């Protein structure tokens, strides 16, 4: 059979398309839920109207986004059974449990309280309404935790035994699956990257308005919140990435060797800045390297030995039998670089912005601005940036809203493709995981249907986001400023229109 149309290839493409697409919405949902909750908390505590306006504005964008996240998530729950039935049979005993936990604990939480939050503005007292968005936020984080625990088990299976008679993996220690270092590091890395993503989204949109001098009080608050989130999130993403990387050098040396296009083990090993390799011959033709840095990234010192692709391939052949145990090297190599490159660019833009837009620290009196003025961008302690540089900073700040999304997409492509040919590392190969009973025509049909539908919905969603971004924060109404005092809302005027309706 033509390899390009092998069932495994098709099923992998479909999983890649639907999952990367789904994950465009996930980090924004996780971070915007918490950031919106934070803004609403500020409103409830201070009663400053700009916080309520910000809550409504970011809350709207959050809702447009989570709608897509929820519906594309439904596919994720079922496509293991559809395209990967042999995988499901083999791992269901272990892998199914965190998925079921996710649905029973996290999804119910998210979906129920989001309904209460959307429709609850005139039905719930202020503090209870606020609690609802926090519940949603907790739900999103729990959801991430369970699904990442499941994914971590595929990266580094623990707490199981193989039942030869039944031909499957069986769970022996669920607690270990939930708390192994791979899971904790992945959760840490994914959540921090999610906040980097949401922070950058806020920075970009706030910059869009500030450069036009519109909605200044709300957008200035949003910009500062976004910048702080980007810097803290970005820094922690780097730290957690380093932790996860070191764990991966232990657990999946092949993935990390591929990430560096390090063909043969070296002591000390260099970090590759740029490389063009020849996969068939197993070496690089062009390479720019920083000596010793890879040893440091892998083992915390500049001299350690790091095994290369060819070494690990040979070791795995000895352990698992003949075969090619190398993933797609260019994808792993460049995916790793796009992930770090785009993520850290966003972090750098955020760090610069945090300094440039500071309010008082090392800022002379004449450069300080009032509540409703756009901040000057001040690089040196006493001098503001010129108009050209100022314009460029705002432009770059707007662009940064997309960078972490690119970074996290490549991060997942890297970590999943870097694990190949394994679907469960060292236990089950991807080619043994597909559905034997599903025909090529069926997989092609579903792939075409999902891809087309997702493309159409992407256009619809982005247009809607643009509309609401441009519209800016809403004017507040009497009803907004006078929330109900009892559950169920006021009963005096029986015909009063609902604050929100579909």
């Amino acid at each position: 059979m033509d390899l390009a149309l092998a069932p495994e290839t098709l099923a992998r493409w479909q999983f890649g398309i639907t999952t990367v697409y789904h994950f465009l919405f996930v980090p924004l949902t996780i971070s915007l839920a918490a950031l919106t909750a934070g803004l609403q908390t500020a409103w409830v505590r201070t009663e400053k109207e700009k916080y309520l306006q910000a809550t409504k504005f970011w809350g709207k964008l959050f809702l447009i986004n989570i709608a897509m996240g929820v519906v594309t998530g439904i596919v994720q729950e079922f496509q293991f059974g559809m395209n990967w039935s042999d995988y499901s049979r083999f791992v269901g005993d272990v892998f199914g449990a965190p998925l079921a936990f996710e649905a029973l604990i996290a999804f119910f939480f998210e979906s129920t309280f989001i309904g209460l939050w959307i429709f609850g503005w005139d039905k719930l007292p202020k503090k209870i309404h606020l609690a609802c968005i926090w519940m949603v936020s907790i739900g999103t984080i729990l959801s991430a935790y369970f699904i990442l625990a499941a994914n971590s088990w595929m990266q580094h299976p623990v707490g199981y035994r193989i039942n030869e008679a039944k031909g499957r993996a069986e769970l022996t220690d669920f607690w270990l699956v939930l708390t192994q270092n791979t899971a904790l590091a992945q959760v840490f890395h994914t959540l921090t990257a999610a906040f980097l993503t949401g922070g950058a989204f806020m920075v970009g949109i706030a910059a869009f308005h500030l450069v036009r001098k519109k909605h200044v009080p709300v957008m200035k608050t949003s910009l500062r919140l976004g910048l702080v989130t980007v810097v803290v999130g970005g820094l922690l993403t780097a730290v957690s990435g380093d932790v996860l990387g070191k764990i991966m050098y232990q657990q999946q040396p092949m993935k990390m060797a591929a990430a560096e296009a390090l063909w043969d083990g070296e002591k000390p090993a260099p970090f590759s800045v740029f490389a063009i390799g020849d996969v068939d011959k197993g070496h690089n033709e062009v390479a720019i390297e920083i000596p010793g840095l890879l040893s440091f990234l892998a083992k915390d010192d500049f001299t350690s030995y790091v095994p290369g692709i060819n070494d690990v391939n040979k070791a795995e052949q000895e352990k698992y039998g003949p075969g090619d145990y190398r993933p797609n090297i260019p994808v792993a190599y460049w995916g790793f670089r796009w992930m770090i490159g785009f993520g850290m660019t966003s972090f750098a833009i955020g760090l610069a912005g945090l300094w440039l837009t500071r309010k008082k620290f090392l800022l002379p009196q004449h450069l300080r601005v009032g509540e409703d003025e756009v901040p000057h961008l001040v690089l040196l302690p006493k001098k503001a940036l010129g108009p050209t540089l100022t314009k460029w900073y705002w432009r770059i700040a707007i662009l940064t809203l997309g960078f972490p999304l690119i970074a996290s997409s490549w991060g997942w492509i890297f970590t999943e493709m870097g694990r190949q040919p394994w679907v469960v590392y060292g236990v089950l190969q991807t080619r043994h995981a597909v559905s034997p009973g599903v025909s090529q025509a069926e997989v092609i049909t579903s792939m075409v249907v999902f891809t087309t539908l997702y493309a159409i919905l992407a256009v619809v969603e982005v247009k809607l986001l643009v509309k609401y971004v441009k519209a800016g924060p809403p004017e507040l109404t009497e009803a907004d400023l006078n929330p109900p005092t009892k559950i169920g809302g006021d009963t005096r005027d029986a015909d009063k229109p609902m604050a929100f309706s579909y």
Partner: protein
Amino acid sequence: MELHDVWFVLIAVLWTGYFFLEGFDFGVGVLTKLLARNRPEKRVLINTIGPVWDGNEVWLLSAGGATFAAFPEWYATLFSGFYLPLLLILVCLIVRGVAFEYRAKRPEENWQRNWETAIFWTSLIPAFLWGVAFGNIVRGVKIDQDFNYAGGVLDLLNPYALLGGLVTLALFTFHGTVFVGLKTVGEIRERARKLALRVGSVTALLALTFLAWTQSDRGDGATLVAVAVAVVSLVVAMVAARAGREGWAFALSGLTIVATVAMLFLTLFPNVMPSTLNPDWSLTVTNASSSPYTLKIMTWCAAVATPIVMLYQGWTYWVFRKRIGTQHIAETVH
């Protein structure tokens, strides 16, 4: 009773919860064409389920996830076997969710009309297909010795399963009609009460045929009781709806759904997916289930989580207990 039997019951409970709750959501979607006379009325209907549809749909994800964890073989065979119908259901659920959230986000009439059309079809199609799917599960399908589905998509469209599809479609529409009677005020409420009688009669006819067919092929004493409960509660629900006792009518149409799902799962046990090729190749609670350790963990999770979920979902219904009519819908875009 062993743990895999407990889990058979729990899977039935999750599906029952799903059909009970998203059943009336689907019904309301169908009613946007069947009951609403103008666009404000359509909006009233959509908003009766506005705050709750998303939480209701999670019962499906829980049923799916729990089946994966408790009966991996069942999950694998069912969803790889019923591939194309499931694809269609997923597409509908995707479009439907987006339609609810995005419909009112633009003022253009075309935009809103398109999403309204989408809501109708994406409610009707899954309401029908779930019945087809369960008809086939109960009747049995071609399953080979490796537990893989060996039939084609046309095998799934047999008369029994298609009748099952009509039953769920009619039953959910009835359930939705009764729900609308309970949740609205004014003219639309009156019409819902009248429509309940007509939809109910069609439902009763279809359901009676389907349940009698099931009973005569594979029923026993217990299933006969379930059939009786389903039919009696359906008829009493119609009477109650007509008499304006909407709370009772809704509880009883819900009971019809519970009894129908119970009947299907009773005929299934101890199989979970019978094979028509060879009874030895049927998936059963024993050969399709997870290890006792996994089932034990899952039991704890379900035992703690499900009642809590029911509490806070129930609370949501209480918060939004007020009936709505066209006067409650503001003419603004959100």
